């Protein structure tokens, strides 16, 4: 029997579960250290973060720490994997939409008025130049054109989960599952019953219990969370890089399982951004994903298992549409 610890960070719930209950406290400390390091390197809300301190120099090139370099490189990998659906240069767009402070301060308001949803098609969107191809990291020198501001938030969170799980497993020789707001990474040994993960966005959404393979990861992106009011409209935090506006919420949530949390996060985010076309894409490249649409219907791709042991707890009207 393992043990777990949980706390709040970055406006979301963080937790670590370990296979050895005696290691829960030290595991929590290790995870907190990893998160603190990443926050100090990449936060766009802290004036003392490395990212904000070097911001004035980025247009001409600035020297960055190994950690910030890793986070930038990871974000560029995510952009490459997703053909730019995940773009780390949306910081200025996010600021313009009002998400310029910690989400707690921006007033997270899930379930706000659907009728006022801001979508690309409703705002006379102007095409935006994709920025990620203009970000260059050569050695420890980072160059970002002055038109762009980096927002490493999503990929940095995923990298944090990957690093934290690996650190706990390596330092203490146990199995570890680290969850940061639902982005999950595992490392080391597994519990006797495997890593059991409950997949569900909001309480009214369909629920499924799955077994996550040892050392693998999972991430869920949602258009129902991290919402806020801006100029009389309800925003969500996943922007379509083509326009710098919230992606059309054809999916309530997209969950992806992959060998790393960075990969899972990149594709779950891209699944939201790409909309309906993501299903065909994921089937083509064999990505295990679970899409939940606006009506609560589930679509599975890439070997994601059908609902199993929790059928009786599934909330109403949640049929599985098809399997890839």
């Amino acid at each position, binding site marked *: 029997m393992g043990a777990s610890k949980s706390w709040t960070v970055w406006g979301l719930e963080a937790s670590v579960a370990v296979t050895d209950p005696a290691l829960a406290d030290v595991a929590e400390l290790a995870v907190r250290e990893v998160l603190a390091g990443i926050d100090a390197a990449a936060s766009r809300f802290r004036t003392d973060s490395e990212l904000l301190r070097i911001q004035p120099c980025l247009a001409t090139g600035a020297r960055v720490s190994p950690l910030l370099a890793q986070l930038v490189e990871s974000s560029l990998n995510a952009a490459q994997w997703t053909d730019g659906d995940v773009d780390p240069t949306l910081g200025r767009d996010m600021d313009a939409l009002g998400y310029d402070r910690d989400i707690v301060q921006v007033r997270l308001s899930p379930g706000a008025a659907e009728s006022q949803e801001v979508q690309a098609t409703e705002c006379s969107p102007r095409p935006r130049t994709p920025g990620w191809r203009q970000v260059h990291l050569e050695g420890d020198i980072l160059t970002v054109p002055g038109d762009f501001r980096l927002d490493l938030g999503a990929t940095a969170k995923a990298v944090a989960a990957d690093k934290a799980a690996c650190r706990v497993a390596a330092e203490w020789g146990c199995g570890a599952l680290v969850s940061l707001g639902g982005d999950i990474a595992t490392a080391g040994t597994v519990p006797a019953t495997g890593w059991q*993960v409950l997949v569900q966005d909001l309480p009214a959404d369909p629920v499924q219990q799955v077994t996550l393979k040892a050392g693998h990861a999972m991430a869920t992106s949602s258009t129902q969370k991290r919402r806020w009011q801006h100029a009389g409209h309800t925003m969500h935090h996943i922007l379509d890089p083509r326009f710098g506006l919230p992606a059309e919420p054809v999916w309530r949530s997209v969950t992806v399982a992959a060998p790393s949390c960075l990969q899972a996060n990149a594709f779950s985010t891209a699944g939201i951004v790409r909309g309906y076309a993501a299903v065909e*894409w994921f089937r083509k490249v064999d990505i295990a994903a679970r899409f939940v649409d606006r009506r609560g219907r589930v679509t599975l791709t890439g*070997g994601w298992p059908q609902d199993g042991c929790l059928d009786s707890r599934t909330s109403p009207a949640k049929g599985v549409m098809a399997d890839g």
Partner: protein
Amino acid sequence: MTTRLSGKKMAANITTIVAVGSFAVAGVAAIAVDLAATKHVAAINSATRNDDGTVPNSGTSQGNGYSGGSVQSGNGGAISGRSSGS
């Protein structure tokens, strides 16, 4: 005495050989992981999007096993984590 020292020396040599061998195996494994990752990225990038949002039928990225069996049905055991949007 001479025999004991030789034995220790032999043991040290064996340890060294085993250690070097372990590093070599680790190196090969690391290269294999890098190659696998590169293959995945190449396959993933081959499925780019057309202007109308559809995916071109390149036929080059079928069944590359990207997910690697990452997830299976649950077994009803104790929940270790929850995956929801944040």
